């Protein structure tokens, strides 16, 4: 029982940064922009988030630092890919390279420092329940926030007019423009939301997951978040399922090594990507004619005036 509870807790902790980063990228991609710089924005968010918390002693301010850092990084992307209509794939990859370098620079002073990690909820009685107590009522604020975030994004996309307009931009930017919607402005907001989420997801790592900063600590989570968005076929509900599934695989991978299971760890690390490919194939077979991806995803738009 103890072990199962420990595994569930570990899975939740490992899944949360994936869920937050992927939620942001989902909104970005739904607006028609492919920002491959999630890994770079996350690692800068991690460095700045840790720096903020270390300087002020407040996890909350650390998280804010992470969000702002991620959003600023994404603004660089927006200026290039939307303002100057540069190829989005190339810009996103460049952003990741920039982020990795920048985070090393920012974080150089913090390496080896420790902070007190984010506090966990404690409700007497409830949290002490066996098995589910700590899982449901003993998490840190990030876990609860990530779930609220994805519910909020679902509600925004499918229940508000602004969400409808955002999806419209992702489906056909020429039509959206012809109807008078400011495509580039809407996309800039979407990109910055994605950047803020990636920054927060990055900050989660040194603020709650491990209470210190090491360069490169995102360790490919940004890429998994990108795969996760595709895996979810751009739907918030499936995104939650996918995030916990992918999180579970990473935890399983660690335990499998510890138990001496004969599956190479490299295969386990590749599983999320393999699952994404399989889901893509299944989806395209299930829905011939229509596309599941936002139709304008990754294409450059220059309005004529």
């Amino acid at each position, binding site marked *: 029982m103890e072990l199962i509870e420990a595994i569930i807790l570990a899975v939740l902790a490992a899944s949360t940064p994936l869920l937050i980063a992927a939620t942001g990228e989902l909104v970005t991609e739904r607006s028609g922009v492919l920002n491959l710089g999630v890994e770079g924005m996350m690692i800068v968010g991690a460095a700045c988030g840790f720096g903020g918390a270390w300087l002020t002693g407040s996890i909350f301010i650390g998280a804010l630092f992470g969000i702002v850092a991620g959003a600023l990084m994404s603004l660089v992307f927006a200026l290039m890919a939307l303002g100057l209509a540069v190829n989005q794939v190339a810009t996103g990859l460049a952003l990741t390279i920039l982020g990795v370098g920048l985070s090393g620079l920012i974080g150089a002073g913090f390496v080896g420092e420790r902070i007190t990690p984010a506090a966990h909820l404690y409700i007497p009685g409830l949290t002490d329940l066996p098995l589910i107590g700590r899982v449901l009522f003993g998490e840190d604020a990030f876990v609860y926030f990530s779930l609220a975030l994805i519910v909020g994004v679902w509600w925004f996309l499918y229940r508000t*007019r602004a969400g*409808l*307009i955002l*999806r*419209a931009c992702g*489906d*056909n930017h*020429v*039509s*959206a423009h*012809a*109807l*008078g*919607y400011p495509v580039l402005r809407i996309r800039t907001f979407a990109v910055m939301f994605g950047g803020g989420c990636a920054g927060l997801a990055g900050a989660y790592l040194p603020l709650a997951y491990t209470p210190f900063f090491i360069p490169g600590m995102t360790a490919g989570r940004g890429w998994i978040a990108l795969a996760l968005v595709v895996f979810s076929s751009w739907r918030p509900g499936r995104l939650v399922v996918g995030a916990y599934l992918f999180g579970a695989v990473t935890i399983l991978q660690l335990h499998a090594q510890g138990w001496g299971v004969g599956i190479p760890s490299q295969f386990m690390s590749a599983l999320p990507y393999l699952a994404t490919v399989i889901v893509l194939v299944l989806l395209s077979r299930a829905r*011939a*004619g*229509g*596309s599941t991806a*936002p*139709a304008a995803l990754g294409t450059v738009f220059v309005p*004529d*005036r």
Partner: protein
Amino acid sequence: MQAHQRMLDPTPNGLHSGESPLLQTLGLTKRYGDFLANDSIDIDIWPKQIHALLGENGAGKSTLVKAIYGLIQPSAGEIRWQGQPIMLSGPSEARSRGIGMVFQHFSLFDNLTVAENVALGLDGKESFKDMSARLEQVSKTYGLPLDPKREVWQLSVGERQRIEIVRALMQDPKFLILDEPTAVLTPQEADQLFIVLERLKAEGRAILYISHKLEEVKRLCDTATILRGGKKVDTCNPRLETAASLARMMVGGEIKEVKAAAGRKTTVPRLVVNDLSLAPGEAHGVRLEHISFELKGGEILGIAGVAGNGQDELFAALSGERLSKDPGTVVIEGIAAGHLSITQRRKLGAAFVPEERLGHGTAPRMKLSENALLTGHAASGMVHHGFIDTAATLKTVDRATETFDVRKAKRDPEAASLSGGNLQKFIVGREILRNPAVLVVSQPTWGVDAGAAAVIRQALLDLATAGAAVLVTSQDLDELAEIADRIAVMFHGHLSAPLATADATREKLGLLMGGSSLEPKEAAHAVGA
């Protein structure tokens, strides 16, 4: 500078004297760099009128309506709405004033539902629920049925246009702009549209109607403004004009009459189709049923019919995009070719021009020379030992440009940058310059202006005179009457026996297009199939 002279639009029966028009442009000018897309255009739109806007491709029609709809800002001039000068910040302001627009290329979102698409065209002041209820009511009132919950990608072209029209009508516009609304419609769908437009006119709304189909304009419109090279050249009552006189005003001169050379001889059969049957390739396709015909050199066979009766499938079977199990079903130059690929058929001397210009006839983002290579690689000496002879591909572009008067901004632009008519001239030219023995061409002048259409039709006639066999599929009966020697009709995957053009009256063709048989005896067979 010359003083600006204002040409007054006629007011029918002096009805409007003393009032001001609903919408007026005064010296409207739009400049792109050195290029004057609109040069000082005056136009008056009155309520209760359907006003046609005519002009060749590139005459400035789209630019003018974009400015009126607030999509682009004019460089100079003024727009007056109900007598007051206005500056439109964007389409939403135009809509809120009562200007609606139905775009030529639909501004729809394929992966959103009908109701969501309509909601996006409104200002969003009412709840989605109220909007859906009103959508149902409007579509019922005007006889434009729509299922609000379906996603657009599942709908036919006619249904998509219905969404656009309903979306515009939901704003209760005083003035509605329609940009080539019938270009993609079947004759029946077009007739339904005209009923709606007449009704809107009777309700006191003004309509600006852009179309290339002059007969349609004569039938529907009260006034016509003609643009040429960005300038307004005339305003007239289309009912008092002939299609030919309207075309003259658009082109600014006589359109060359398409003429077949005398003494055209038919020779050996060059394209023979024997009992070709083919299952549909996609869910909503048409099954080809026992199609047979013989086409000799020097002959043009026209295939008429309402779109979607198997013409696309027949084209795919002839071009080799879909293969037949029995090689003998398609015989090109005496060789059984039903099982051969497109390239192998080209090597036999066949050439193909599909209906869709961008995406099927050409790769839109590739240069013309590269597009020349895409069909010319088979048999036109453009490839040597696996390497592309760029000089040869460019030469093809130059020859097509020269022979068929293709107007373009530079020597070798991207295909997508050409206007529809010019791109079509290039595509037809590219194939004809290969001197094909057999040319299969689908909708050769679809959405092409009168001048370019005349050039293309003449080229097809000349090719036949030179001894080639030409198969033309077209929905335009006038076009077929002009160039074809025989006309057959396609209906539900069946092809009728060809009629000599002189014998193929509209009535006869109409009957065949509706699925009736000319011989009462055969009726049972046609229905039973």
